[in-house]
């Protein structure tokens, strides 16, 4: 912008200065029915290409499973979507208007993307109910949290989530003393209470007993529809029990996409998993 133009824009006082306009992301626009666009994404770490021209589209309300051998770039992909890792090139859009590559983690979380880690990460020194309180949506600034109190509506919301994840009885227990499966559910509950549109769930079934796994599968399928859920998982039985559509990642890009049956009969997928 030339000097003259800059001066003109500063002198124009029928609108506020540009830097004073709050930098809020636009509302989520789902007019085309697609909630997440990843296009031509590349990421490399010290020359190693973790993500290589990745293209992935997720429909609104879908439950998508992502599988792939170790090092295929599944976790890196989640890191890019949630703002933890910067992409070298490509674009990532949440709905039609929200550019994820320009936002950091708290902004992305506020825009409506929740993430569950591979290892269950809950606030171990806090009771279950406080874990949910901390995760609850709303203003998360320093000053508002200093004086924040739970109101009745928020309490009801916490109760509702406790029912969904089945931890009503444990609500006053320290999160650190929960079993592995319960921690996983609590973490999913912490995502839910933020009212996210898109849930990224990294290996929810890892280390679970068979019953726990069934309950998790039920929980995730019940979430799809209202929320869009992306599940990264190793356990094929688990994937088969929940997935309608599966994407296979290999060496940082999508190798195949389709129903579980299609995938299992795909020659390239068999090669990747079993070796030629």
């Amino acid at each position: 912008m030339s000097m003259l133009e800059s001066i003109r824009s500063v002198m124009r006082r029928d609108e506020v200065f540009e830097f004073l306009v709050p930098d809020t992301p636009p509302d989520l626009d789902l007019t085309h029915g697609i909630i997440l666009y990843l296009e031509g994404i590349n990421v490399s770490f010290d020359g190693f290409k973790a993500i290589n021209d990745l293209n992935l589209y997720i429909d609104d309300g879908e439950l998508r499973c992502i599988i792939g051998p170790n090092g295929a770039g599944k976790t890196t992909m989640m890191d890019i979507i949630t703002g933890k890792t910067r992409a070298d090139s490509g674009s990532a859009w949440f709905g039609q208007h929200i550019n994820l590559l320009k936002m950091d983690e708290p902004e992305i979380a506020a825009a409506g993307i929740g993430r569950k880690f591979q290892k269950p990460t809950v606030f171990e020194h806090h009771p279950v109910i406080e874990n949910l309180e901390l995760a609850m949506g709303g203003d998360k600034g320093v000053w508002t949290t200093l004086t924040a109190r739970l109101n009745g509506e928020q309490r009801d919301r916490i109760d509702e989530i406790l029912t969904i994840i089945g931890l009503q009885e444990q609500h006053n227990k320290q999160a650190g003393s929960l079993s592995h499966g319960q921690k996983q559910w609590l973490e999913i509950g912490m995502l839910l209470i933020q009212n996210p549109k898109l849930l990224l769930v990294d290996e929810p079934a890892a280390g679970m007993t068979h019953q726990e796994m069934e309950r998790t599968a039920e929980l995730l399928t019940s979430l799809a529809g209202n929320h869009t859920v992306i599940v990264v998982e190793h356990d094929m039985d688990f994937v088969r029990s929940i997935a309608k559509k599966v994407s296979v990642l290999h060496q940082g890009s999508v190798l195949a996409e389709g129903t579980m049956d299609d995938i299992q009969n795909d020659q390239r997928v068999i090669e990747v998993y079993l070796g030629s």
Partner: protein
Amino acid sequence: MILLKLLKSDRSGTFMLALLLLTTLVVPICNLLLPESSSLHISTYTMTLLGKYLCYALLAVAVDLVWGYLGILSLGHGAFFALGGYAMGMYLMRQIGSRGTYGHPVLPDFMVFLNWQELPWFWHGFNWFWFAMLMVVLVPGLLALVFGWLAFRSRVTGVYLSIMTQALTYALLLAFFRNEMGFGGNNGLTDFKDILGFSLQSDHTRAGLFIASATALGLGYLSCLYITRSRLGRVCTAIRDQEDRTRFTGYRVEHFKLWIFTFSAMLAGIAGALYVPQAGIINPGEFAPLASIEIVIWVAVGGRATLYGAVAGALMVNYAKSYLTAAMPDAWLFALGGLFVLVTLLLPRGVTGLLRKKEVTR
């Protein structure tokens, strides 16, 4: 109302505050009203010593807030303490007026000695008490704000951050040692005469300073208690335990760290300001890295993540220090090091951890 609720949530702390209130009443009475022949008389020396301990306790509370609750191991809090102390020292220097050795009406003795002709710009304003008190909180607060903004924004954590805080206080130590800085070089600021017109030598002024220290500790304690019991406090412990999770939950971790760190630095500054008139001197030695490490040891001994533990730790270790440096001057550093090792190995939750049967880390 809020106060009652707060105190109810912290029984041991309430007990400690009650004890503090009692001390605040009894010590000055025993010093001022009882004759020296009485067995209950408390000497001015003892009262001043206790007053200094209370300043240390406030400093320990400030460190516990960032270390115990937020997980930032600051090894440079002595710097904020010393800066607050210097701000107070500058006020006290200006109060000397023409009573200095050289009798200059404006310039402090060390400036006359260095052949300076006029007051450096940063000494202006310190003849007013309110201005000096403002600087007591603003200077440490600003330093913490700038330092924290740079460090937390770049996500420096853990050991690296601790080393940076050590470097910060060491850099200030070297700077303040220089005569050209205009803070009295290695002699620091001393030979104070009076504060707000009251002679620092009089018992009444000393009693006043003691009460002020106790009040500052009480208020500082309550404000930290208020923070740790609010949702803000819960976010802090969440950051301490799972920083990434907190970030993905939508909290701006760096903002939380920055404000708590700055608040803590301000508390440390107040502690320093109250310490200086009672100690009678402030010199660059307060910036020494070792001094900052000692503060961390007080908190560790008392039990971190309990505010009353920090107070108890500061009092115990400093009492031991006063005793040992008099009885066996060479043994003190060994005792301090040994104490730290023992506490880390045997009492990870500090002395107050012994009193608590079940886990109460909230």
